[in-house]
Structure formats: C-alpha cells, structure tokens
C-alpha cells in the first residue's frame, strides 16, 4: 500500500509532473464535471483512453495502473448489469437462469452504459492526476482553490501520519502474525482489535511529540505555507488550450449530436 499510496510515482520527472498543480487540479475537476454531465458515453471513454494512454506514455508500471483501476472498473460492470435489469420498463431480452426469470430493459442498458462510462472516465482521470501530482502540491492546490486552510492542515497531518504509523502498524501486525494471532476467526478479530487499539495509542503518543516539534519550530497555531509560484504565460496558454479542447469535445459530442 505504501508504494501505491505514496508520492512514489508523482515525484518522477515528466511533462505532466512539471505542470502547475493548481491548473492540473482545476482542469481535472472541470473535466470531471463535463463527464458526469455527459449523456453520450463517447466523452467519458475518450478521457478514459487518453488517461490510460498517458499513463503508459510516462512509463507508469502496468501493475500499478491495473491495481488502481481494476476495483472501480469491476464495480462499473456491476452497475451496468444491475441497471440493465432493474432500471426502465421496455423489455429488450428475457431469459431464465436456475428457475429465475430475468428481463433486460432497453432504458436500463442505455443508462447502465452511460453510468459505467462516466465511472471509467472519471476514475482514470483522477488516477492519472494522483500519479503525476505529489500530495503536498495537491494540498497547496486545494488551498488555492478556496478549501479551508484548517482542513488542508489536518489533511497534511493525516497524510504524513499515515506513513509514520504504517511502519509501527506493519511491525505490530507481523509480530502478531508470527505468534499465530490471526489463526482463527475469533482470535483474529481480537488480535485485530488489539492492533487497532495499539495503533491509536501510538498515534496519541506521536501527536504529543509532533506538537512539541511543531512548537520548537515556531508553530503559533496555524501552519505557514510557502507562496505558490506565480503562473506564467505558458501555463495560461496550456490551460486555455486544454479548455478549448474540452469545450470543443463537449460541444461536438453533447450539444451538437
């Protein structure tokens, strides 16, 4: 989890990691909005394949891409099937399975395709964003978009805290495992609970030392953030180009058709 969750891939140097985090975040949110507003499955699929292609282009490992996308895509398939059977009224196809009657409905199939496409497009886009933007830049980007600084500060603390505690968690988990702490359902649950309690106590202890360290560094109640670098002409041009591309696609696929 550490590798998938960390900035392991986003600190690599490529044309996307060099782009300004604010603009990447804002553009991703606008595309996401366009995707969930779209009724034509083509728009989400274009962004799905564009994101996938970009991930391969910048050399992300296949395993990492599949690891992140497989779950949501599997669930997209489930949603498609559920909607095909349960949404709409016009029967498209009937069949029997183990004595149960199933009716596929045409409106349901259409709705299912649209929903599954939206899921695929938006998930791939956000996975790409996370792969090319380090966490601290994402937090700075969120702040610049007006997210309350207190929330961003807690997010940064929690994000950092996960790595601090994950090591202790792993050590305790392995120690419990080799002592057969998870050999059986009831014992496993009790061991899991003890592990949870121990991690919480470790977190409380760490919080004190973290607070002390923050005070020693001149902390006065809110975390100072370095000002983000000003956006250059090139940034604005790239952003305008991306927006024109998106608007043209949206117009052709949604409004024009």
């Amino acid at each position, binding site marked *: 989890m550490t590798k998938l969750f960390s900035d392991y891939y986003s600190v690599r140097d490529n044309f996307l990691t060099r782009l300004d985090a604010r603009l990447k975040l804002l553009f991703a949110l606008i595309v996401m909005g366009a995707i969930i507003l779209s009724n034509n499955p083509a728009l989400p699929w274009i962004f799905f394949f564009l994101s996938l292609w970009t991930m391969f282009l910048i050399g992300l490992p296949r395993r990492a891409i599949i690891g992140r996308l497989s779950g949501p895509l599997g669930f997209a398939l489930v949603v498609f099937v559920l909607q095909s059977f349960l949404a709409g009224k016009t029967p498209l196809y009937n069949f029997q399975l183990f004595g149960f009657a199933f009716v596929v409905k045409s409106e349901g199939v259409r709705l299912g395709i649209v929903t599954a496409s939206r899921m695929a497009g938006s998930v791939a886009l956000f996975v790409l964003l996370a792969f090319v933007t380090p966490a601290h830049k994402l937090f700075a980007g969120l702040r610049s978009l007006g997210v309350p600084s207190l929330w961003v*500060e807690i997010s940064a603390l929690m*994000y950092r805290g*996960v790595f601090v505690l994950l090591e202790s968690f792993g050590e305790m988990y392995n120690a419990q495992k080799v002592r057969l702490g998870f050999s059986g359902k009831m014992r496993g*649950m009790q061991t899991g609970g003890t592990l949870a309690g121990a991690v919480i106590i470790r977190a409380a202890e760490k919080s*004190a030392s973290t607070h002390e360290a923050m005070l020693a560094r001149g902390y006065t109640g809110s975390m100072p953030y370095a000002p983000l670098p000003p956006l250059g002409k090139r940034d604005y041009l790239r952003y305008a180009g991306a927006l024109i591309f998106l608007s043209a696609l949206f117009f052709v696929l949604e409004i024009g058709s």
Partner: protein
Amino acid sequence: MKRLLSVWFLALIFAPESAFAMHIADGILPAGWALFWWIVAAPFLWLGLARLKERVADGGNAKAFTGLVGSAIFIISCMPIPVPISGSTSHPCGTGIAAVLIGPRLTFVVASVALTLQAIFLAHGGFTTLGANFFSMGVMGGLVGYSVFNLGKRFGVSPVRSAFMAGMLSDWATYATTSLELSAALHGDGPFGTMFLAVLTAFVPTQLPLGIMEGFMSAAAFKFINERRPELFSFSSGKTVANEKAI
C-alpha cells in the same frame, strides 16, 4: 414474489463486488444527486471544522492529536478483513471507534479527510461523490457510533459492549445510507424500492458479517485503550489529554 426473488438472486451474484462499493465511485451519481449530497453534507463538515477550531483555541495539541488519531483510523479502515459468506475481503469503516474516541464532530473532519485521501490516492470513492460518501460514512457512521455508545452507557450496558454495538451499528448505518444513495441515483424509470432492495441485498452478505466483525474489533480496541490509556477517551468530552504522561 418471483420478481423479488430474481432481484435477490442477481444481487447475490454481485455480492463479492459490493465490498468495493463501500464508497461510491466518481461517475455513479448523476450531477444533480452529487450536488445534492454535497449540499446535505456541507453543514456537517462546517460543524466539524468549527469544533476543531474551538479545540485548537483551548490550547494543547488538539490539532496534532486529531490528525494523528485520524491517520490511525485511516490505517485501521484500510485493514483487509476476509468476509466469510461472500468469500471477498472488505474493510472496516472505523468511524464508530473514532466517534467514541474524538467525538462525532471531529469524526466528521477526520472522515472527510480520509475519504479524500482514499479517493485521490487509492481510487477508492470519488471526488464528485465525496458529499454522498462523507454523509454515509462520516455523518451517519459517526453519529450512530457516538449515540449508540453513549446510550449504552446511560442504560447501564458495559462500555466494552457499548463499543461493540457502536462499531457494528455505525458500519450498518453507513451501508444502509450508501444503499439509499445508490438506489436513489440508479433506479432510473424503474421502481426505487426494487433497486434499493437489490443494492441492500448485495451489501448484506459482506456487510452483515463485516459489521459484526467491526463491532468485535471496536470492542477489543476500546478494551485495549481503556486498560492502558483511559484518559484518551476524555478528549471526546472536550478535555485536553495533551502534555501529560507519555503524550
């Protein structure tokens, strides 16, 4: 009846996948529903941040404590748990024990951050669906967990048993709310009730045992902390637990 049985059958086929539906992914909710849940959830997040501001103003290490306990809850909520009936693995919500430990309003803040981190870095959940996921896990999970724990204590139930009930019921409340959110958005022209039943049934094989397991885990965690550092539980009632003992 036959129709209901086929819905039930269909839902059971997809039960193993339902573990992944714990947080609604981007794209499932249409724009209107996504916006609706953001609007419903926003006041709770505001309440949570206001509470955090109060605690920070009181002095002590409330911010670091909330952040790091939030990290611990996040790690706990990522623990894979094998679910016996469906054969899949799922993970606990963690909001029940979080609410007992830091109170419901700070649980709102911690849950909102945990959901954002999961959405961005693990592709679990989503950004447009954050309002819906936050309402089901953070708000419903947190409020149910806290209320059940305190009601249990008030009616003379032992704190460990109350923690068990808090963990179990907060998990079930999260899934019941998620089912409602999903079926409201997905039923299209079809009946809402049938879709709700299908989604709820798909959750039952994983979430019914998972809720019980989360209850046991919460009870064991509560017992462990209560025996070693009982003063940590005073944080939820507004006391500062900072700068004493090892903290």
